């Protein structure tokens, strides 16, 4: 499958990164220290593009191939922005859902690839920590459903024992825009570990064992969990600055992060100076009259 890092606008990704860090990044500091994301200088509005000096006009017209590539047929120049923002919107939805034990983060290179980790807190797979990657088709949201691939193939009826891919499609036979969202996929990825389904398995062995010999299944699951957890501190499979990596507890780095998490102090967004940031209101709640608040000075 072709992924297109062309879509990845690094500056946006950098910004998104800070969101992700707030919401889903700090799994008690296992994650790799963030690299300084490229700062974007401030620009004036309604700027015309600058005229590059000695720029050679590119006369080559956009090739038909390129246009065709835009599956959703938008204005070629803006298509990537739409996709990027659709994915950002999906990501904000994931944050909103506060899925228990699931953390994801779009990669630095492409918004179409998200790194994730799932913590299983009870059940057969208790204590399992499974890293995975979500691949989103580049014609999102009009393509097929995103794919979820575990870094290490977990022993599970619905996980391909070779590729580690989870059978997501059975839950989302047709991906419908506006109805299906990526958080649902993540939710599904979590559910499969609590509610085992053996129908049409990708791993027939696991399915058969689960149906015929649960004890052996359990032992195999435990082994699989152990295996996965033993590779927890491995380097991330993909060389991406935003890939999720675990490291052993280092008080110098992690204590502070932990404290910040517990005090729930959010870094204030950079206020830009000169702008009035606090709004005004003298409207009494429940009223639509201006200056209806009771504590108004006498002239009102």
């Amino acid at each position: 499958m072709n992924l297109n890092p062309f879509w990845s606008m690094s500056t946006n990704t950098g910004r998104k990164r800070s969101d992700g860090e707030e919401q889903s990044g700090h799994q008690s500091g296992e994650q790799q220290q963030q690299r300084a994301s490229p700062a974007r200088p401030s620009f004036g509005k309604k700027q015309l593009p600058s005229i590059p000096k000695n720029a050679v006009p590119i006369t080559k017209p956009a090739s038909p191939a390129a246009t065709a590539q835009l599956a959703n047929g938008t204005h070629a120049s803006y298509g990537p922005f739409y996709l990027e923002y659709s994915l950002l919107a999906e990501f904000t939805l994931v944050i909103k859902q506060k899925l228990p034990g699931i953390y994801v983060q779009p990669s630095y290179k492409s918004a179409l690839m998200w790194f994730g980790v799932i913590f299983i807190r009870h059940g057969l797979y208790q204590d399992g920590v499974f890293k995975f990657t979500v691949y989103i088709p580049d014609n999102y949201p009009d393509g097929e459903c995103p794919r979820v691939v575990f870094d290490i193939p977990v022993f599970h009826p619905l996980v391909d024992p070779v590729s580690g891919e989870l059978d997501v499609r059975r839950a989302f036979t047709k991906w419908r825009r506006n109805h299906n969202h990526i958080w649902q996929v993540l939710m599904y990825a979590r559910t499969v570990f609590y509610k085992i389904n053996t129908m049409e398995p990708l791993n027939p062995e696991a399915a058969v064992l689960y149906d015929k010999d649960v004890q052996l299944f359990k032992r195999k699951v435990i082994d699989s969990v152990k295996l996965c957890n033993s590779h927890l501190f491995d380097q991330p499979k993909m060389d991406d600055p935003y890939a999720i990596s675990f490291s052993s507890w280092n008080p110098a780095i992690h204590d502070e992060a932990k404290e910040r998490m517990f005090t729930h102090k959010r870094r204030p967004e950079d206020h830009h100076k000169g702008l009035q940031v606090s709004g005004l209101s003298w409207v009494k709640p429940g009223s639509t009259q201006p200056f209806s608040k009771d504590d108004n000075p006498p002239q009102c």
Partner: protein
Amino acid sequence: MMMASMVANGNRNGREGEALVLKGVDPETCMIVFKNHWAQVVKILEKHDPLRSNTSSNMAALGVIGLSSGGPMRFGGPIPGDEASAVQNYVEHMLFLLMEEDAGQAGAMGPILEFVVMENVMERLFLWSLRRQFTDDMKLEQLKMYEMIVGQARQPLLHHKPVLRPLMMLLSSCSGTAGPEVEAELVSLLNQLCCVLAKDQSVLELFFHTSEDQGAANFLIFSLLIPFIHREGLVGQQARDALLLIMSLSAENQRVAQHIAENTYFCPVLATGLSGLYSSLPTKLEVPGEEWHCLHREDWLQMPTLVQFLNSLEFCNAVIQVAHPSIRDQLVSYIYNGFLVPVLAPALHKLTLEEVMTTTAYLDLFMRSVSEPVLLQTFLSFILLHRHENVHILDTLVSRINTPFQLGTVSLALFQTLIGLYCEDVMLQLILRYLIPCNHMMLSQRRVVKERDFYSVSAAKILALTPSCCSPEHSPPPLRQLDSILWSKGTDNSPNTGIKETETFLEEDGSGYSCVIGSEIYLDVNYLHYLYNARLGISSCTRACQVWSAPYDGEDPPPEEYQPSALEETGARGRQAQTVNPKRSHPHPRPRPPCPPQTTDPAPTNHLELEWDDSYDACPVVSPEAAESSRPPQPPAAEPPKHIQEMRRTAIMLVKGSYIEESDFQDDVMVYDLVAKKDARDTVDRCRPSRETQPELEESEMDSEFNLEEDHFKESSLQEKDEVPLSNGLSLPLHPTNMEVNSSEVTKGSKEVKGHVADYNSNLQSPSATEVGDDLMGQYEELIRTLGSDEAGTGGSSPVKTVDKEFRNPVVTPMEEDEVDFSSFSMDTPELEKQHSSLFGTKLRSGSTRSHSVPFTGPFVSVLLSRLENMLDNSLHVNLLLTGILAQLAAYPQPLLQSFLLNTNMVFQPSVRSLYQVLASLKNQIEQQASTKKDFPEMITSAQHCLLARESSLKGQDTNSGDSRDCSPLVAGRMMKSSPPSQPKTISLARTEVFATVLFTEFLKELAAIAQEHSILSHVPMEE
């Protein structure tokens, strides 16, 4: 007497020398020296003591305290010079000793100070100087002496009455009559005393007590400062600083606060001073150029009177910030009643366009200068709620957006300022209250209000309106910069280095999925800037709006409660409120701002103001005779005020031929009119109870007037049919004297019909128009279908595809419809006018039956969209302002506003014009221009060059400008400094349609970026 001046002058050098001398000298020696000096002084003093001579006229007149010592004495004539200078020398030394003395153990007085207190040294010295001629020079010296010892003594001196009392006597003797030098010194000393007060409040009581000794419960140092409040230069500044210190004192000290509020003229002086200073401002500004639209720092720095006014305004702002609430409230009340209502309101209604424009520019500057919420509230409630000659200031200001030339532009700038305040009350009055009932959309659409645009559908639709001549694919680099964003791994760190080579490469990642870099697609990097700015704008706006009372999301406030049909109920509530807070609209003995009338939703206007609102610029002058002949006699009050009529006339003369009216606004106004008529009735009901407080004459006048209006209303359609054509100037053939006006009206009318049939075609009933109407209806329905196609759930088909389809084969909007060309008719074809009039009449009849729910998004939106619709004819700077304001509005996070402005999926009521519709019609106009004018593409390129040059020159200016409020990040502010633009050689600014096209394209990007950021930002819980 020279001593003090010598003391004072020798201050710096002398003191240091003395200090060196005194260092190491033991206190006892100092004391002995001091006593010796004093003994010498006393000898001379007693020799000339007037009390010993029964001719103490001086003292008696002054009525000051008696002197301690007595004894027989000769009449003292003029004091010999040698004796005076001897005293002066002694005193000089004594004061040094006093200043250099350290406090005793545990804060006790040092021995010298104790001696000074016991012997009443200071007072006797003061009396000695009074004995002689108390000239300005002498006052000056005494003041300087005190300034020195108060400022430099090492122990607190003012705690001791024998020091404080002569000081107070000196101060009071200096008040009023002194020359400028004494005044300067007086203020300087007062400032110093206030500093002492601010540091050590225990002295405060003494200041009061001391005054009482003199027979007046007076806070002397405060009263003495008041006359200098509005003084210019250093003296004024020092006085204001000193007063501010006392103000902050008042916040903690009830007694000071009470004294200032009840016993001084501080607040009235401050407020009426504003009026005085305002009256000295130029009534007409010399405008640097056509594109000038607001007073920037560099503008007003050139105007001393304006600087002075702003200083005083800033001082009011500061006082309100720090003073006790009782003072604060009194001050804003005086500002409201002593400045805004009596001075600024009439100034906003002056006779000529220039004067009104000037006042508007001042008001805008004031709004930008004021920062304290309470003061802002005062100004805002004046703008939003005050009625001048029965018209809300706000309505007047809104209607002026539509006036030609500078007044319209300056008014736009004012609204830009207002919208930038993030004030709920402003937004409520301007727009939100019209959107709350959700009548502007189809009922089924209410749930869409809060819906999130996951896939940037709206942005795509907006960008799809990009004119083909400006489309990224079609216009060649370098101008339409199409550098693709190819930041692959290696080049990540420098994302803004400009155009990169496009390249293709393959990348294998660990999982076997290959990534292909697209090679042939160019991205508009410029768009990233818009996204970035949109993000900044939206997040600061969202943060600011957290203090608002409601989310305005179509559920809260609930639309049901604010339906026009619920007006009665609201009215009842308003009535209740009014009995609590009776309206005061006439002068009040103790000035208090009038309680603004409680208004009803959605349109709190009465009929009278509409008369002027709709006819101000949209209609020709209706002369009183004309009015009388066609409608029942009216009370004179029903006519717009004389000066407004006058101004209208001026405006129309100015616009004749050059200015094309926003006729569509007129249409809205008729709806407005209907709603308001109903309102007028409500108003009568609501107003009655409070009318009793009005003078009798006024009451009867009002009553008859309102009754009349009621009758009007009851007579319903027939009456209205007569009325409305009149207000549209269509009955004018009856009055040939108005021919000239009429001709311009017909032109307007034809344009109107041509341009905006869509808005009322559904109501077309007249047979001659039926055909046209049906056709248009069909097209309109098609348009709605297209708009709603995504909503209808076209399954897997992408709405973006629809956009693309639209782009290639644009939907024919009714605006293109050219079948009805009224411009071919001249004004001497009465049938046509009849047809015209019947057209409006029909419209109104059908309108009146559903006047309760007539969707109307408010005059402000209406007027903005009307001006936007004329974008191709507008000058560049008007368009910059317009698009700036609309972008500002679009950044507001309230779903009602967002969905109205940005959601292209929303299906609105047919009579409601949306931003998208206007943009679509503009696109069509542009495409037409582009296809008919051969030089269009190259002109576009020139215009882009011109704008770029302009922008970079402005950037340079920005870095030099220190006025942060003037350097708002808004494009209009940035791109429109007062300096004349560098005229491009290749293109004249008169080619408005070319500049408008470039700007239109950029505006689309700006809006799309805002829409995209909304889809992310508005749904992430805010920090904190």
